[in-house]
């Protein structure tokens, strides 16, 4: 396996506050990698730093063999990295169809119908809602739309920031199922940031644990799930919710 994305010694700051303290992380081609951690550990920051906002102050970010550390955000996102950002951030007044188009247009995808079919196969609900305004969708549907919009750019690497946030267990299951399906059938590489550690570790091939802006543990999903300190810190009370 070759590394699609690798971070080495990456630090990032919000003003004077250091959010990432020398993060090393590798995502191999075709893998689902999850990043778990408590609130404020820097999970979302790490994902945003990959996208160049905030910019990494030290360290290197290499994607597909190229150094992307200093590229502007839009240039990074056009290299077939797609992100479903935290809080979904769909375009509320635009229709579902327009939202999906936005994903395809910017990256210059021309075969929109085929891409649409792929998204509909994954989330049939979106097809029913195609002419509805994005803001009128339920939370779960909005998450589906956010992921669908990201997929419309035909990404090699999909960044997912807390897709389970605020969703009912059944919907979470559906969305995680879709991620697994995507990875299995098309070999899509996924970096998943999650609070829902149990579900995320079960889904992922490998996982990293982030504490106060630094990686403290790494291993396969099953390995991390079995560790007592992980159980104590992130899984207490949540292992039964699945």
């Amino acid at each position: 396996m070759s590394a699609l994305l690798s971070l080495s010694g990456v630090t990032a700051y919000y003003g004077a506050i250091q959010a990432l303290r020398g993060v090393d992380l590798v995502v191999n081609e075709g893998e689902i990698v999850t990043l778990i951690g408590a609130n404020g550990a820097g999970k979302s920051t790490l994902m945003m730093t990959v996208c160049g906002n905030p910019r990494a102050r030290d360290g290197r970010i290499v994607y597909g063999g190229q150094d992307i550390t200093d590229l502007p955000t839009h240039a990074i996102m056009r290299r077939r990295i797609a992100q479903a950002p935290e809080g979904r951030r769909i375009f509320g007044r635009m229709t579902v169809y327009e939202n999906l188009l936005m994903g395809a247009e910017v990256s210059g995808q021309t075969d929109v119908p085929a891409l649409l079919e792929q998204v509909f196969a994954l989330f049939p609900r979106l097809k029913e809602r195609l002419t509805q305004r994005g803001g009128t969708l339920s939370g779960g549907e909005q998450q589906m739309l956010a992921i669908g919009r990201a997929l419309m750019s035909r990404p090699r690497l999909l960044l997912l920031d807390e897709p389970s946030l605020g969703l009912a267990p059944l919907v979470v299951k559906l969305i995680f199922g879709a991620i697994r399906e995507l990875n299995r059938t098309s070999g899509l590489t996924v970096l998943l940031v999650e609070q829902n550690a149990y579900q995320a570790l079960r889904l992922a091939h490998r996982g990293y644990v982030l504490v106060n802006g630094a990686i403290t543990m790494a291993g396969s999903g099953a390995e991390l799930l079995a560790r007592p300190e992980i159980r104590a810190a992130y899984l207490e009370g949540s292992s039964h919710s699945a």
Partner: protein
Amino acid sequence: MNLALRDAFLSAAAALGLFLPMVGFVATNTDQGLVLTYRPIAVAVLVAMVFVGRLIAVSWRGRSARPQQPNAELAARFAAAGKYLTPLLLVMALLLPLSGSRYYVDLGTLVLTYIMLGWGLNIVVGLAGLLDLGYVAFYAVGAYSYALLAESFGLGFWTCLPLAGILAAFAGLLLGFPVLRLRGDYLAIVTLAFGEIIRVVLINWVSLTHGPNGISGVPRPTLFGLSFSMDGGEGTVAGFFDIEPETIQRVVFLYYVIFGLALLTNWVTLRLRRLPLGRAWEALREDEVACRSLGIDVTNTKLTAFAIGAMFGGFAGAFFATRQAFVSPESFTFIESATVLAIVVLGGLGSQLGVALAALAMVGGLELLRELLTEIAEQMGSPIFAGLAGELPTYRMLIFGIALVVVMVLRPRGLVSGRTPTATLPARA
């Protein structure tokens, strides 16, 4: 009911406070100088009107169980009416000069100018969601571009029109760069300042702009090289077509010029909305972070919105200069920016039809109301109506304010709030 009474009393008290100084006291010029006279009855009538009106409004609203219902109904009705309204308005605008009344054609030209400005600003504010309080700056740049080019190089209107647009677009970029990182209130303040800076520069750069004196003798537009001069000789429209030269010919021609320019603005906007660029503007309005995450170059997207919006402002400015044959900094005050912005907000951000309706109501409506009152006054010989008609311009801003409040209460998202999708899925086999 008690609640309604209390509410009505409070409103009446507020009305008393407002109207007592504004209506209750009148300073009249007499032989002994200014004398203060009082109008207690007028104040009493106004306060009573507010009291009764509020009482009715509150008890009526209390009766209807769901206050949201009429809004939805109204919206549906507007949407249905819109289908017929657009062609109707177009035909009316096209046929207006047939009325042969110089007054109506002049008024129509004014309304169309504001419609065009509204449509131009709509790109920036309505589509891209960038609150611009200094739009008049681009209007001024366009007007002065033409006036100065004509004065210095003797260029004609049709040569200068695109140049004025380009220069205004350049001014748009100039404004765009420093404000790229600003949003909302902060953006509004800087654009407001930009509008004022342009005006102050126009006043003080006397060697170029002639300062407050303005530039007079700005040439009129020509029809394929034929002028609308009154001598009716060779090279004039009247001479060419062998008709009597009349001022109305020029007025009607100007009307159709602005009509064409406005339609061009509308057409370009509608086209752009359906292109990825236009969709990116709207996406930017909805969520800037999401745009970045999709790989949209936010910088370029914002700059194009500023530049294209400014360009149409520049076109309108060049037209303004040629119509007035005179430009001075006085025409480009903040109130113009505010009026155009009010038109866009009243009409419904992003709605082309809404902007046209709002401009029609705000610019044309008031003028027509004044005309109507004068007419009634003349026919009835009634001093009350004559007085009302005479004082109406004084209350212009008050009427604007009331209209804005009423529309914002009834339709918080503007007259035409429905958004037409920019793309629909093509029917599949």
